[in-house]
């Protein structure tokens, strides 16, 4: 194993050891807290003490191995797996990756390689090409070693490239450092900002995301020009997105948007899309849809290092299909001039939306299935695809049934491309969740729309509300009376009486009364 990996694992072992130590301290505390009630208990206590002492001395070999095992298991659990059950053959990697630039190419290719079995080899090869354009030696090493059995040609580490890159980074680093020092000595604001920015780019290329963020934020603070600030923020956001640090993304996004609020900058578009991206991660799909649709505005949208204009079309269209109702769909998509241009870039998505709107369900379902592989292989959308697909399907079913009073379930099953049994299960689930107002005639396989008798419903509601009101009011009156009479459930007063016995409140009262009797 390489040195860096070893350090990582040792760190993990240290953390595990700390945890074990904490546990031993707890066990000792428990052991001492227990009251010894018998000989057996005494023996147990001393045993535990002994164990505690042993553990304190240091972890045994067995325990170290156990910890290593745990670390490995955890790593294995977080491993990305292939997506099964979907045919990815229609997906063209080169077409997909064409629009992107910079690091995002690398990340997206890796994502595809890990999810699609068919494309793994090709994607990995393209990934290696990309990674060699950066200075990220660690990533290169990690991936080549991990997938060495899949990569047949490029199996070995390209040591030449590694050495060259090391030398290169060392010399670039020296140059950049001296530049920055000079700028600081001369108190050259422009120079300082530029120096910090360049160092940030340098670390970003190396894959050291933390340092990159550090320098980007210094660059941002050393200037007052809003355009420059937004630029620094965007670089920071790019870094944070690669590192999946959502808190950083949102803080830099806020800073950038504050500065560029009033100005009509070209970067406003990309900032809005990043907002949309954050909404997706927090599962606010409707807000995200709005943000993507309104992102470009009148300006041309250009920031291929994170999202392309195709992405806007896909994300905006897909999210709005899942979350908008009919009128919203019409207003925001079909009548929206600016967004239409972006939708045209992805004709499949456009067709799906139009088919849905015009109730052409067979084509709609077909188109939806066709576009699924592409969405599943998109880095940011993949984990939400299934959920959104279920939502879209539900909406389609509800819309399909809405004009009918009675509907033949066989026809419905055919139109939605499923069997009669499956559609019956889907329908009964929807009805049980109150999303569909209907009843199933299982004998004749017909779905009936319900005519709710509003009059009886009103009567029922009124009568139950009346009963509820009367009960609650009486309960409150009772409570008011209790409080007025100063009656609460409280600890009974204990008083010592002649004879030394403790008597409670009730008995006191009784005694008084009895005395009154005599």
């Amino acid at each position, binding site marked *: 194993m390489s040195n860096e990996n070893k350090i990582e694992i040792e760190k993990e072992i240290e953390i595990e050891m700390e945890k074990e130590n904490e546990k031993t301290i707890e066990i000792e505390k428990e052991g001492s807290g227990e009251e010894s009630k018998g000989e057996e208990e005494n023996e147990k206590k001393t045993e535990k003490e002994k164990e505690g002492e042993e553990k304190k001395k240091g972890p045994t070999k067995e325990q170290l191995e156990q910890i290593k095992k745990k670390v490995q298991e955890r790593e294995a659990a977080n491993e990305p797996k292939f997506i099964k059950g979907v045919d990815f053959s229609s997906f063209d990697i080169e077409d997909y990756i064409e629009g992107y630039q910079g690091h995002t190419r690398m990340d997206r290719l890796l994502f595809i390689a890990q999810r699609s079995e068919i494309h793994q080899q090709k994607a990995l090869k393209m990934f290696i090409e990309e990674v060699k354009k950066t200075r990220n030696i660690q990533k290169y090493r990690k991936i080549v070693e991990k997938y060495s059995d899949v990569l047949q040609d490029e199996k070995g580490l390209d040591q030449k490239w590694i050495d060259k890159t090391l030398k290169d980074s060392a010399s670039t680093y020296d140059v950049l450092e001296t530049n920055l020092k000079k700028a600081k000595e001369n108190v050259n604001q422009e120079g300082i900002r530029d120096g910090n920015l360049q160092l940030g780019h340098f670390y970003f290329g190396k894959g050291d995301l933390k340092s990159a963020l550090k320098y980007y934020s210094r660059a941002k603070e050393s200037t007052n020009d809003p355009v420059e600030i937004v630029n620094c923020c965007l670089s920071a956001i790019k870094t944070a997105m690669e590192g999946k640090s959502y808190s950083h993304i949102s803080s830099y996004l806020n800073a950038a948007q504050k500065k560029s609020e009033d100005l009509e900058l070209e970067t406003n578009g990309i900032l809005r899309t990043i907002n949309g991206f954050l909404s997706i991660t927090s599962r606010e799909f409707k807000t995200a849809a709005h943000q993507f649709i309104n992102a470009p505005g009148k300006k041309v949208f250009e920031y291929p290092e994170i999202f392309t204009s195709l992405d806007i079309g896909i994300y905006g269209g897909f999210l709005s299909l899942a979350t908008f109702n009919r009128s919203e769909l019409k207003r925001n998509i079909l009548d929206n001039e600016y967004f239409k241009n972006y939708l045209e870039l992805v004709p499949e998505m456009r067709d799906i939306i139009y088919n849905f709107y015009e109730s052409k369900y067979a084509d709609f379902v077909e188109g939806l299935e066709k576009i699924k592989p592409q969405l599943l292989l998109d880095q940011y959308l993949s984990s939400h695809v299934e959920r959104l697909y279920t939502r879209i399907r539900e909406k389609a079913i509800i819309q399909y049934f809405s004009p009918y009073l009675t509907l033949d379930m066989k026809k419905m099953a055919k139109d939605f491309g499923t069997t009669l049994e499956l559609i019956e299960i889907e329908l*009964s689930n929807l*009805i*049980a969740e109150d999303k569909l107002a209907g*009843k*199933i*005639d*299982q*004998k*004749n396989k017909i779905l*009936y729309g319900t005519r709710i*008798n509003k*009059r*009886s419903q009103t*009567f029922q509601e009124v*009568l139950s509300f*009346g*009963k509820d*009101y*009367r*009960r609650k*009011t*009486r*309960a409150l*009156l*009772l*409570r*008011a*009376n*209790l*409080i*007025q*009479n*100063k*009656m*609460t*459930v*409280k*600890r009974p007063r204990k008083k010592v009486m002649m004879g030394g016995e403790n008597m409670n*409140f*009730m008995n006191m*009262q*009784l005694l*008084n*009364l*009895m*005395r*009154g*009797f005599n």
Partner: protein
Amino acid sequence: MEQVLNIIFQNSNNKESLQHLFEFLKKKEKIINEQKNNLDLYLEQLHNGHHTLGCLFLLAAKAQAKNYFLCKRLAEICIENSVPQAAILPLYQSIQKLQKTSELTPAHPYLMLVSLCSKNFSVATKVLEEEVFEIESKRTGLNIKEVLLYFYYGGLIWAILKQYDRATHFFELNISFPANILSRIVLESYKKFIFTSILSTGKVPVLPSQTSHVVEKNLRQFCGPYLKFKQFFENSNSLELNELVVKFNDVFGKDNNLGLAKLCIQNLLKRGIQRLTKTYITLSLEFVAEKFGLGSVINAEFYILDMIEKGEVFAKIDQKKGEISFHDDPETYQSSKVGIRMDKEIQEVIDLSNQIKHLDERIMVYPNYIMKKMKEDYHSQKKSEEMNEKKMN
């Protein structure tokens, strides 16, 4: 009190002043009542023959306080001697005679207790039907334990009579009373509350907001198996529920709640079938048997027949084809019965709102309240003056 005695002495001699004395004594009734403990002293001072009116008032005051103690002793004695039913009628009559309208007296819980012991609920139901919410602890000597007991026993009686809705209400009252500590009665009420609310509505409602924090916190601590039962019921898994009851058999048994628990499990099936009426118009018996694990078609038919007879579901069974067809609730709310019912309920609501108005008027004249209000007004006035000064400066 001394004054009263003097006036009794003075005026007991001639007939005219007796009238005055009567009116005077009536006014002073409150003072006389408060002297409960020392009434004997004063009685000795008055001679029965000469001062009859005075004696009468004093004796009446003495009687009121003692009456309820009598009730309790009566109940205890009857239970000890295994004739609880003997106490029912006397207690009922004492309630009727001594009770002001809608008032809760100490005799109430003992009547309930005695009815439970003798398993004779006809009288108790009459008393339970009347909604009680007035309390005058000074006059009646009622204490909080008796209040809790009344609602606990009352809830038990309603549950035995299968009126789970009312039982739930009584137990809920117990749980939400003002409290500083958790009482055993409240704890048991909560346990039964879970079961009866499941039996009446299929779910356990959130505790009312007036429930004291002490009660809420401690309830969770002591009712572990019950809360698990509630969770499993909500997940509608009858197998798990059965296992849970078997596992905690002794816990439920100790609290005498096994019967309720088993009823709840049966209820799960009923709820499931009722949910089906929402989604289906016709259904095959096979489907029902399969979905609820009833074993055979015959079992399913039996269950649904039972439910139809009890009016828990509205359906028809076609035995030849093995199908059930559900139809809507045939109640159309158009009969005169409904009209009469609405009238009665509207009247009750009007009465209630009158009561609230009275309570409001009483509070408004209450000296403590007036003082508080005056203080508040004074403070807020001062504050607004300070604000104005600041603005001007």
